[in-house]
């Protein structure tokens, strides 16, 4: 049986180094994580924060150095060993069994049983006890697969707590959550530490880190830059620590919103799955931000515009031409491009070369009689890649070898090759490191300056506020507010996004 740590629950990392195939991932890292604190690990992608988390939780073992729990040196050979010491990870990719109920998932592998049969009543009793102890609840008999992401995460937390976890490592817990789910999660995290548990938080949302953490450790290139109380840090000091330089301005200067330029995109009373009665005009050179909670219909609106889902009523005009019932193939030809929400699932062919990913939507231009012209492809693709400043070894390497930010830029390169008139970017900086974000913003602003109509969808409020000339807030599939100029504030967007949702089921 796992045991509870008695008094001193500190986890100490002492001079730990770790290499992967010659490349140092961690170099002489020392951190002390004190019992009952929320300890955040921040750094750019590849800085070593996830590796450190994995060493503490026994996924990797250090090449040099040691881990101390309660001042006692431990040698974890597997996550199981770490679990026996009360250290559990809630991974980025959740591991629930979809067709088992919540309680079955919570006690998976540790079911109360007799003669090989699960004692259901005993399990229910223990589940209730656990839920009462923890302070948040999930319906015990609901299928885990039907839970929203945030609830699946709670399920994993319950599972960890049912194993008497004293230290919980959370790797990007809020990355896939909507705003109000994030608030709920923060509540759960605070309640965990209130009951004496330690939370190690790996996150690239700096505002979240500053909001929650007691101690922040900054990593860069596998080294600890500093580890100290969170109240001595600011967003800027964290970024400086992570990058080794200051970021400069987070957003490019705003160009004046054009008022005389032609209307490129006109949407009239559009109804589609998840979208009700949406009307919108976007002028050449304009960036329109689409804000709202996850599930408010933003991505569905983008899908409908692009012809990826069926429009039930209303019209879509591109530069005056009706494109209402087009499929994606036709939309691209009429000049609408979409950067989809999830680049891995909807955007890229991960195993194929970078060049093929860029040219995919434009092969008809790059080929003659159905045969792709290698020179024409190479020339056009390399220009497109240069335009968006993709860093790579060779454009023939698989796109999976690129960092998240560069993968996203590959999608931008694809759209520039399409020469669209309207560009819809759905969560263009999700999972992208701080350094690449600014470059993606630059590309968006350049595209608008070149005369495109741009629609940016983002869950990061600062992003919408920093980029857009105009913000439209969606709620429950409808456009509920349009904000311009001085009215574009965080407060106003949040009010519009949240209004009534508290009472709605």
């Amino acid at each position, binding site marked *: 049986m796992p045991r509870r740590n008695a008094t001193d629950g500190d986890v100490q990392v002492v001079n730990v180094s770790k290499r*992967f*195939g*010659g*490349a140092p991932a961690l170099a002489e890292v020392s951190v002390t994580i004190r019992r009952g604190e929320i300890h955040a690990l921040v750094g750019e992608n*590849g800085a070593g924060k996830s590796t450190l988390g994995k060493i503490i939780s026994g996924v990797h073992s250090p090449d040099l150095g040691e881990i101390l729990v309660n001042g006692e040196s431990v040698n974890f050979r597997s996550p199981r060993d770490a679990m026996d010491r009360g250290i559990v990870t809630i991974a980025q990719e959740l591991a629930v069994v979809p067709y088992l109920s919540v309680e079955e998932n919570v006690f998976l592998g540790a079911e109360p049983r007799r003669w090989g049969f699960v004692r259901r009543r005993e399990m229910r009793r223990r589940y209730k006890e656990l839920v009462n102890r923890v302070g948040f609840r999930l319906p015990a008999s609901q299928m885990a697969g039907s839970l929203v992401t945030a609830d699946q995460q709670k399920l994993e937390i319950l599972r960890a707590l049912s194993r008497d976890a004293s230290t919980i490592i959370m790797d990007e817990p809020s990355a896939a959550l909507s705003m109000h789910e994030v608030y709920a999660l923060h509540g759960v995290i605070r309640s965990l530490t209130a009951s004496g548990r330690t939370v190690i938080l790996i996150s690239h949302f700096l505002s979240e880190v500053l909001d929650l953490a007691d101690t922040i450790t900054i990593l860069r290139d596998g080294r600890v830059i500093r580890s100290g109380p969170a109240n001595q840090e600011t967003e800027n000091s964290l970024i400086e620590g992570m990058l080794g330089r200051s970021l400069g301005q987070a957003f490019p200067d705003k160009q004046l919103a054009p008022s005389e330029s032609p209307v490129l995109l006109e949407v009239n009373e559009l109804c589609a799955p998840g979208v009700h009665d949406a009307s919108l005009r976007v002028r050449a050179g304009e960036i329109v931000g689409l804000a709202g909670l996850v599930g408010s219909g933003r991505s569905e609106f983008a899908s409908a515009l*692009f012809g*990826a889902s069926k429009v039930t009523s209303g019209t879509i005009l591109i530069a005056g031409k009706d494109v209402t019932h087009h*499929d*994606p*193939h036709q*939309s*691209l*030809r009429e000049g609408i491009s*979409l950067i*989809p929400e999830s680049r891995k*699932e*909807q*955007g*890229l*062919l*991960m*195993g*194929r070369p970078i060049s*093929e990913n860029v*040219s*995919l*939507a434009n*092969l*008809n231009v790059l*080929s003659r009689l*159905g*045969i*792709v012209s290698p020179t024409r492809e190479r020339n056009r693709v390399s220009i497109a890649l240069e335009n968006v400043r993709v*860093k*790579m*070894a*060779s*454009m*023939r*390497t*698989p796109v*999976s*070898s*690129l*960092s998240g930010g*560069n993968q996203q830029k590959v999608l931008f390169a*694809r759209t520039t090759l399409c020469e669209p008139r309207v560009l819809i970017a759905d969560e263009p900086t999700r999972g992208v490191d701080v350094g690449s974000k600014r470059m993606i913003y630059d590309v968006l602003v350049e595209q608008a300056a070149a005369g495109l109509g741009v629609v940016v969808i983002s869950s990061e409020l600062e992003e919408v506020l920093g980029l857009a000339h105009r913000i439209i807030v969606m709620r429950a599939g409808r456009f509920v507010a349009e904000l311009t100029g001085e009215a574009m504030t965080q407060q106003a967007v949040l009010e519009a996004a949240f209004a009534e949702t508290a009472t709605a089921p």
Partner: protein
Amino acid sequence: MTEASNGVLNPTELDTANFSWRRFGGLWRTTGILIPFLVLFITLAIANGQFLTRQNLVVNILYLQAPILIIAAAGTLVLIAGGLDLSVAATFVLAEDVAAGVALHSNPIFAVILALLCGAVVGLVNGFVVAYLRINALIATLAMSFVVAGIAEVATNNTFYSLFDRPSLGKFATQDFLGAQSAIWIALVVVVILGLTLWRSTFGRYVFAAGGNAEAARLAGVRVSRVRITTFVLSGTAAALAGVISLAQTLTTTPYSNESSLAFTVLAGIVVGGTSIVGGDGSVTRTVIGTLFIALIQNGFDLLQFNTFYIPLVTGVILIVAVSLDVWLRQRRR
């Protein structure tokens, strides 16, 4: 070498931990079965004097493998596009029956064309069921193989044709040209055309995209359903062509029960060659090598007078090794 010198290597952008694995994976994917194939080839050449004779290489191997190579080349496209065609054996038998039935009473060229059309129609139905009714390709083509075999049986009233009285169709496969029979030349042309299509054409790119990530392909403007249907039409037509060649080789039709394992023989060749079972990766060249590798094993058993009962066992083991390697490399690449 050339890869590294062409671009500036930026170590931070490359996942160094997996880099050597990716290299090995890449090497396996390009040469893959080629090295075992060459080893087997050389071994057989040394072990048996008959192996390197024209009779053995051209007649025993290429001539007899021609129908299988044709089906496998088209099947490669189906597999890469994310599909699977189990109905090829039934289509093969249907095409034999149609060609034989028509050739008995009229022009053999007309018989060939009609048989190929039947194959194309079977492929079209397969593609429609898979792409628009969204039925899993394995189930859809399994069901279709019963339907097609049933049609063949009903249409022929379960009798077998022989064309010994009207052997002119035989020339379709046996006509000698530059030292090889027409069956081999037809297979070569099919393999080269399909190989080039996959390698260089826009359609080939769409095939890779449809199987690699269908949703991403759709959002990039690829008409995934059309692409998949086309691969099934190619596969059906190829199976019919193989049936016609087989008929021309033997001048008799075969019962479905004798050919029912054909789809699996073909699939084994494709997969041993290294084309991915889950789509998105593969090549016709590899399929040719994989198919010939299996043929070499059979040939080796014959020449060295081993007990041929062991052939299926050996083939099965090789298949498992090839698929395990594919799965393993896929996980490594993550």
